[in-house]
């Protein structure tokens, strides 16, 4: 039991506080960029714009998960347990979005 207790504490680097502040700054800048891009691209309705916003969301998610949630310091196996299934979810999202417009007629009520 003592052995397990000892392993529980994930190694945290000495400059953790600096990393947290850096991540905070990155997240703030990305959010400001998000809002600025929204107004710059307001009159455009291209798919590229949607992909850009989803990409920025994924970048933010990467920083939250890797630094705030300590994922960066976990074992690779644990990372894949969590990230692996989410790859299938993104496949489902892609399927739903590409098939959606075929049901438009049934929605006009």
């Amino acid at each position: 039991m003592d052995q397990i207790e000892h392993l529980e504490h994930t190694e945290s680097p000495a400059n953790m506080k600096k990393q947290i502040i850096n991540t905070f700054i990155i997240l703030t800048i990305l959010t400001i960029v998000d809002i600025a891009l929204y107004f710059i691209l307001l009159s455009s309705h291209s798919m590229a714009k949607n992909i850009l916003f989803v990409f920025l969301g994924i970048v933010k998610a990467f920083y939250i998960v890797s630094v705030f949630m300590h994922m960066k310091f976990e074992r690779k196996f644990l990372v894949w347990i969590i990230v692996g299934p989410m790859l299938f979810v993104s496949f489902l999202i892609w399927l739903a979005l590409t098939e959606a417009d075929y049901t438009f007629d049934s929605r006009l009520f």
Partner: protein
Amino acid sequence: MANSATLTTDSKQTWGGGKSPFSVSYGKLMMWIFLLSDAFTFSSLLVAYGFVRFTFTGSLPNTIVKPFSHLSHNFVEEMQKAGMFVTERWPSPELVFNHFPFLHGIHLPLMFVSLMTFILIFSSVTMVLAVEAGHRMAKKEVENYMILTIIGGAAFLGCQAWEWSNFITEGASLQNNPFGPTAFAALFFIVTGFHGTHVLSGVIINIVIYFNVVNGTYEKRGHYEMVEKVGLYWHFVDLVWVFVFTFFYLI
């Protein structure tokens, strides 16, 4: 077989038993698995949103209202007459979410929801600082950061309540939507409501953890791992908001 010699060689291997193969505790691993299942729930809601959203192939009408311009009292009716809010087309979010508390009658598209995003990011940062202080066994610091996190969460909930009441006052409900397709309002209430429920439960758990920290429960236990586990949940809530913000307001 089960003599002491084999046991000691086995435990040196990753899956030999006697230690966590993931180098995390049982509770933390289960928190990760729970968050994965919760991510599935939110993904299904966002997939449903995307599916309904993309059935409306007609593009969004271009904006006709300039930011900071005056908002009339019958703004919604004007937009309906102008063909911006029709059931065949998904409305432009900047025309729907354009109010700000105490600044009545000014067109401020997405400003309030941006503020909410910053509040949630900020409370996420204070949470991770509490976890970091917990690693150093700094009880006082953990207390202070937990308090800031709870305030951030409560502020976010207050903002969401204000946004909901504003949306409801304008006539939106699960069955009715003056801004366009009924599904728009229904999905808004379901997805932000489900996220808000998560924030509410997160704030309650944070309060419980705060009192445990004050009472010195984790000081006696020798580690602040419980703060870490709650932190994981709290960051997950922030993570979901990133995508709710992207899908509902930006796209």
